[in-house]
C-alpha cells in the first residue's frame, strides 16, 4: 500500500503540496519520512522510440523510489535526460533528471530547468559531467560554463528567489528537489567532505555517490561527514551496483573515470564459480552494510546492462523492510484511496 502522501489525482500529476517540502514528487517525501530510499539509474536509449523507455524501466517497477535519467553519461550521445524524464512521468514513475555542465551553457541550462519542471520533473541532479575525451565525440567542444556547485546555486536561486542568474524574474519557479553527486573514493580525499559541504551550502538536498565497493573508505568519509554535521543537512544515497565478473571489474577500474574497486573485491570474484552471482552477492552485502552506516539515507543502484537483477538485489538486501515503492497496479489515485477508505 502506498503512503497517502504519495498518492495524487493521477499517477503522473504533481502531489499535493506539503509544508517543509520544496517539491511535489515522491522521492522527497520518502526521504523526509525517514524511510530508507532506493533509487536506480537507467541508461537512455540510442533511439527515438518512446516504447524503449517503458521496456527499460519495467524491471524497476515497485522496487525503486526514483529513477535517474542520465544526461549523456560517459560523454556518449543518447536520448536527452529531460525527454526521458517526461516519458517516465507519463507512465507514472518519478524521475531524477540529471543535468551535466559539459554540454550546455547557463542560458540553455536554466531554460531546461524550467522546461523539465513544467513537464512534471520534481528532482534534479546537478553534475559536472565526464570530459568529452571519455565519449564517442572526443572532438566536441567541452562547455563547462558552470560547475556543479554553480549549477546547484543557480537552481536554488531560480526556485527560492524566483529569478534567473541575470536577476530577471521568474513568474512560476521550478518546484524541484535538488541533488548532487560526490565521489568519496577519489583524491584529494581530505577535500571531499569540504566539497560536499560546499554543495550543501549551494543548495544540494540529496547526494548520490559514486559506486561504493570499499566500505572502510566509505566509513572514513562518512565519519568526517557526520563530524561536520553534513548528514543532517542533506540525504546521502550511496551508489551501488553488481559487477558482472572479475574481468569486467578490472576493465571498469582501468577505464571508467572515478570508479575505485579494491583488490579484495576482484580476488573474491575471481575465486567464485559463478562470478555473476557472486557479483550480485557482493552488491547485496554492501547494501546491507551501508544500511547500518550512520548518515546513509538510501542507496542508488547503477546496474548497467544488469537492470533485470535490480529487483532481486533490492529484495535480498531487505532494505525496503516490507515497503513497496510506486507500482502501476497499486492504488495510484486519490480517487481510489478515497473510495477504499470509505469502504
Amino acid at each position, binding site marked *: 500500500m502506498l503512503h497517502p502522501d504519495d498518492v495524487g489525482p493521477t499517477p503522473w500529476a504533481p502531489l499535493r503540496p506539503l509544508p517543509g517540502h520544496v517539491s511535489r514528487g515522491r522521492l522527497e517525501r520518502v526521504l523526509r519520512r525517514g524511510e530508507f530510499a532506493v533509487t536506480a539509474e537507467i541508461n537512455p536509449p540510442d533511439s527515438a522510440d518512446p516504447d524503449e523507455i517503458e521496456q527499460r524501466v519495467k524491471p524497476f517497477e515497485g522496487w525503486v523510489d526514483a529513477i535517474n535519467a542520465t544526461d549523456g553519461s560517459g560523454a556518449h550521445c543518447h536520448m536527452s535526460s529531460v525527454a526521458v524524464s517526461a516519458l517516465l512521468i507519463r507512465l507514472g514513475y518519478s524521475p531524477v533528471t540529471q543535468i551535466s555542465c559539459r554540454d550546455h551553457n547557463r542560458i540553455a541550462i536554466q531554460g531546461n530547468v524550467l522546461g523539465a519542471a513544467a513537464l512534471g520533473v520534481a528532482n534534479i541532479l546537478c553534475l559536472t559531467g565526464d570530459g568529452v575525451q571519455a565519449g564517442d565525440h*572526443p572532438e566536441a567542444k567541452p562547455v*563547462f560554463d558552470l*560547475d556543479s556547485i*554553480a549549477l546547484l546555486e543557480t537552481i536554488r536561486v531560480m526556485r527560492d528567489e524566483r529569478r534567473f542568474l541575470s536577476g530577471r524574474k521568474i513568474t512560476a519557479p521550478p518546484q524541484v528537489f535538488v541533488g548532487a553527486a560526490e565521489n568519496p573514493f577519489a583524491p584529494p580525499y581530505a577535500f571531499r567532505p569540504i566539497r560536499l559541504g560546499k554543495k550543501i551550502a549551494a543548495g544540494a538536498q540529496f547526494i548520490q555517490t559514486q559506486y561504493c565497493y570499499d566500505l572502510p573508505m566509505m566509513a572514513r568519509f562518512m565519519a568526517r561527514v557526520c563530524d561536520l554535521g553534513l548528514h543532517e543537512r542533506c540525504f546521502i544515497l550511496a551508489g551501488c551496483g553488481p559487477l558482472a565478473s572479475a574481468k569486467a571489474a578490472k576493465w571498469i577500474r582501468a577505464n571508467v573515470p572515478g570508479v575505485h574497486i579494491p583488490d579484495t573485491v576482484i580476488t573474491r570474484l575471481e575465486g567464485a564459480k559463478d562470478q555473476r552471482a557472486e557479483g550480485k552477492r557482493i552488491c547485496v552485502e554492501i547494501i546491507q552494510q551501508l544500511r547500518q552506516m550512520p548518515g546513509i539515507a538510501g542507496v542508488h543502484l547503477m546496474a548497467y546492462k544488469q537492470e533485470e537483477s535490480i529487483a532481486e538485489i533490492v529484495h535480498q538486501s531487505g532494505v525496503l523492510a516490507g515497503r513497496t515503492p510506486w507500482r502501476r497496479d497499486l492504488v495510484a489515485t486519490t480517487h481510489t484511496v478515497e473510495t477504499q477508505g470509505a469502504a
Partner: protein
Amino acid sequence: MRAEDAFPVRGVARPALPRRSLRLWSVRHARGLAAFYRGFERGLRAAAPLLRRIGYARLERPVAGVERVVKQALFDCRMCGQCVLSATGLSCPMNCPKGLRNGPCGGVRDNGTCEVHPQMPCVWVKAFEGAERMGAVARLGEAQAPIDHRKTGRSSWLQAAQADAAP
C-alpha cells in the same frame, strides 16, 4: 557480457602535455609565494590613487601584458581576469580541463592525476597541497561564482586595485 560492453570505451588518447614544472614549483613554494603575493597586492592597493590618476583604461594593456607574462610563467595563468589563486593554494584552476573553480571533479585518478589528461597532476590535488602549505585550507570551502567570460584577458591586478579603491 563482454567486459568491454560494461561501459563505453574511452576516446582516443591525447598527446602528452609538456611538463609544466614551474607551475608545480609554485605550488610547492605556495607559502612563501603567497606571502610575497599578498605584499604585492598591498602595494597595488596603495598605488590605487596614482593608478587612478594615470587612468585605468590607459593602464589596462601594459599592465595586463606584464601580468600575463609573470603569471603565465609562475602559474600557467590563463588570464581569466578574475583571479582566485589565493583561494586555490596557488594552483590555477583554469588549467583544469573542465575549468572547475570550486574543487575537483569525481574523475581524479587513484594516483592523483587528471581524468582528462592522465599525464597531468589534477590541479585540485595540487591546490589542496598548496592550501595546506599556506595554511589556507578553509579558503577552499569558499564558493566561487561562475566565471564572467567578458573579463577574459583583462588584468586582475588592476581590478583588485580598483575594487579596493571604490568607495
